[in-house]
C-alpha cells in the first residue's frame, strides 16, 4: 500500500512481515488454479496460527492451510478441489471434528463481500439466497460477533426493496463487506512497484486485493515496468494497492497458471490420498512442507519430471494431452 518504486522482498520476509497469528486473510485463485501456494506453504512452515480465512472457492490453498492447523475461523462458499477431492478433505474433517468455526456463504456472496470491501462500502445487495439456510444458519454467534470488532454484527440482512418494485425485486439480501488484513495472490507478471497483469480468468483476485489492507503479490515473472506500461489495458491491478512483490517462479504449483503450467493432477491426488489419514498426512507435510527450506526446496522434492509434465502449450495455455488422473 505504498507508492515506493521497489517493493520486491523475499517471500519469507513478506510472510513474516504481513501475516501474523490471528490475521484476517484471503488468498487468490479458484480450486486448482492460481492459488498462491508458495506463500501458503511458507505460512505453514512459519507455523502461523489462528488465522481467520475468507474464501470463495480457494481449493488447494485452503485445504493445505486448514490441514496444517493454521486456520481457526473460516468464512467460505465452497471447499472443493476438482476431481481429486470434490470436497476438500481436511476442510470436511475439520468441520466434522469441530476443529474450526465456520460460516457458509455462496460464491457470489463472498465475491460481493470482497467487492464491497474494494469499493469502500459497508455492504452490497444481491438477490441471492432468499429462503435458504445460508441466511438463517450463522456459524458465528451474535455474542461472539458483538465481542469481536473485526467481525460484523450480522451475517446477512434482508430488506424490502426501498425503491418499491423497481426492477421487479421485492426484497434484497445485503452482504457485509470484507476488508482482510492481508491478501496474497499469485499472478503471471508483476513489476517491482507492484502493478500486476493476470492472464486468463481473474476469479475474485482483483476484488480481494482492493479490499485488503495489505497485499502480497507473488509472481511467475518479475518484469520491467516498461513491459507492463506498453499495455495498460491488461494490468488489472495498479501498484497503489500492493504492499510487497515476491518473485516466485512456479509459485502456484501444484495449481495451474494459465500460459505457464497446468495443475499437477498427480500431486493433487497424492495430497488428497494423504489427507484422508492423519499419519499419512503428517508424513506428507514433513516431506513436502516442513522438510524443505523454501519453495525451491519444495520443487526439488517434487522433481523436474513433474514440472516438465505440466508445462503449458504456448497455443492453448495449458498442457495439451497431459495425463490427468
Amino acid at each position, binding site marked *: 500500500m505504498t507508492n515506493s518504486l521497489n517493493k520486491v522482498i523475499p517471500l519469507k520476509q513478506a510472510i513474516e512481515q504481513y501475516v501474523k497469528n490471528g490475521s484476517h486473510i484471503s488468498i487468490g485463485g479458484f480450486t486448482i*488454479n492460481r492459488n498462491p501456494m508458495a506463500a501458503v506453504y511458507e505460512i505453514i512452515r512459519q507455523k502461523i496460527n489462528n488465522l481467520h480465512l475468507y474464501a470463495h472457492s480457494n481449493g488447494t490453498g485452503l485445504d493445505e492451510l486448514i490441514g496444517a492447523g493454521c486456520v481457526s475461523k473460516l468464512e467460505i*462458499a465452497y471447499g472443493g478441489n476438482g476431481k481429486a477431492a470434490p*470436497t476438500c478433505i481436511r476442510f470436511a474433517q475439520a468441520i466434522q471434528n469441530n476443529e474450526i468455526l465456520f460460516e457458509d456463504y455462496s460464491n*457470489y456472496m463472498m465475491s460481493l463481500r470482497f467487492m464491497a470491501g474494494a469499493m469502500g462500502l459497508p455492504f452490497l445487495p444481491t438477490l441471492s439466497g*432468499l*429462503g435458504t439456510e445460508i441466511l438463517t444458519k450463522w456459524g458465528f454467534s451474535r455474542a461472539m460477533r458483538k465481542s469481536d470488532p473485526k467481525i460484523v454484527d450480522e451475517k446477512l440482512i434482508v430488506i424490502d426493496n426501498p425503491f418499491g418494485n423497481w426492477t421487479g425485486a421485492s426484497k434484497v439480501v445485503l452482504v457485509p463487506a470484507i476488508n482482510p488484513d492481508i491478501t496474497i495472490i499469485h499472478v503471471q507478471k508483476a513489476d517491482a512497484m507492484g502493478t500486476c497483469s493476470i492472464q486468463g*480468468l*481473474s476469479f475474485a483476485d482483483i476484488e480481494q486485493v482492493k479490499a485488503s489492507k495489505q497485499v502480497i503479490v507473488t509472481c511467475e515473472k518479475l518484469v520491467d515496468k516498461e513491459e507492463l506500461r506498453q499495455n495498460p489495458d491488461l494490468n488489472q491491478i495498479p501498484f497503489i494497492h500492493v504492499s510487497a512483490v515476491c518473485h516466485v517462479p512456479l509459485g502456484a504449483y501444484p495449481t495451474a497458471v494459465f500460459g505457464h503450467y497446468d495443475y499437477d493432477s498427480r500431486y493433487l491426488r497424492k495430497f488428497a490420498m494423504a489427507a484422508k489419514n492423519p499419519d499419512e498426512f503428517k508424513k506428507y507435510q514433513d516431506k513436502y512442507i516442513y522438510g524443505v527450506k523454501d519453495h525451491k526446496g519444495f520443487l526439488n522434492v517434487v522433481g523436474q519430471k513433474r514440472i516438465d509434465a505440466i508445462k503449458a502449450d504456448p497455443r492453448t495455455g495449458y498442457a495439451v494431452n497431459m495425463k490427468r488422473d
Partner: protein
Amino acid sequence: METIQPYTPKEIMTIMAAREIKNGDIVFSGTGISMLAAMAAKNINAPESVIFFETGAIDSLLEELPFAVADPRIMYWAASNSRLTDSFATMQNKITGDKVIAILGAAQIDKYGNLNTTCIGDYFSPEIRFSGSGGGCDVASFVPRCIAFMQHEKRKFVEKLDYLTSPGQLEGKNSRKKAGLRPGGVSVVVTNMGVMRFDKDTGKMYLDKFYPGITPEKILENTEFNMDISTATRADPPTQTELKILRKDCDPQRLILG
C-alpha cells in the same frame, strides 16, 4: 429380465438433459456430466447455445474436457475471460439471466426442488460435510430454468433436507415469490431412472418420464417423498444420431461416460 440397452445410464441422462437446452440458451455448466450435456446440446440440438462458467469464461473452445470450472482449459479461445462478480451478474441480470439454463448436482433434493450441497446431519457438527454452495445457491436464486442431475436413491430424494443450500420452490405454492425470489430454481430433475418436473401451482415434483426398463413404481420406491406419477409416460430413448454424436464428438475418450 431387461432388454439389453444400447446406451448406459450416464448416456441417457446426458441426452435427456441435452434435450432441455434450447437453441440460443446460455448454459451454466459445472464439470463432469453437466459439461457433457452442454456439449451434447451444442452438437445435437442447440448449435447456438453458449457454454458459460461461473468463473467468468463464455463460449470457450473446449478442445479437452475441463476437470474443474477453474481448469485452464476453459480459458482458451473464450469470447471473454472475466471474473466471478461479472459471471454472477450476468445471471442476476434478467436481460441475460432469463436465457440461462443451469445444470446442477446435489447430495439431496426435496419435493419442491430445493437442494442440499452442504452437509448430512447437523450443520454445526455434520456426519458428512460437502463442499457447500459454491455458485449453486446463486444460480438457483437467479435463473428461470435449472436441471438437477441426481442418482435416484431414497437418501437423496428426501422428505426434509438436512440443509437448504439452493432454493427451489421452497415450501411450494407461492412461497418462492413470497421469499422475494424470482420464478426459477430447479425446473427439471434428470436421474438414472427418469425425468421429474414441478407442478406450476403446487410447486411439487411429479414424474414426467420414466426410462425404458424402469417403472414409475420403481422410481417411487427410490423416492422418500410421495410423488405424482399419474401423468408419467415412457421417455423416448436416445436416438442413434444422438448417441453417435455424444460418443464420437463429445467424449470420444469416455473420460466422463466411463
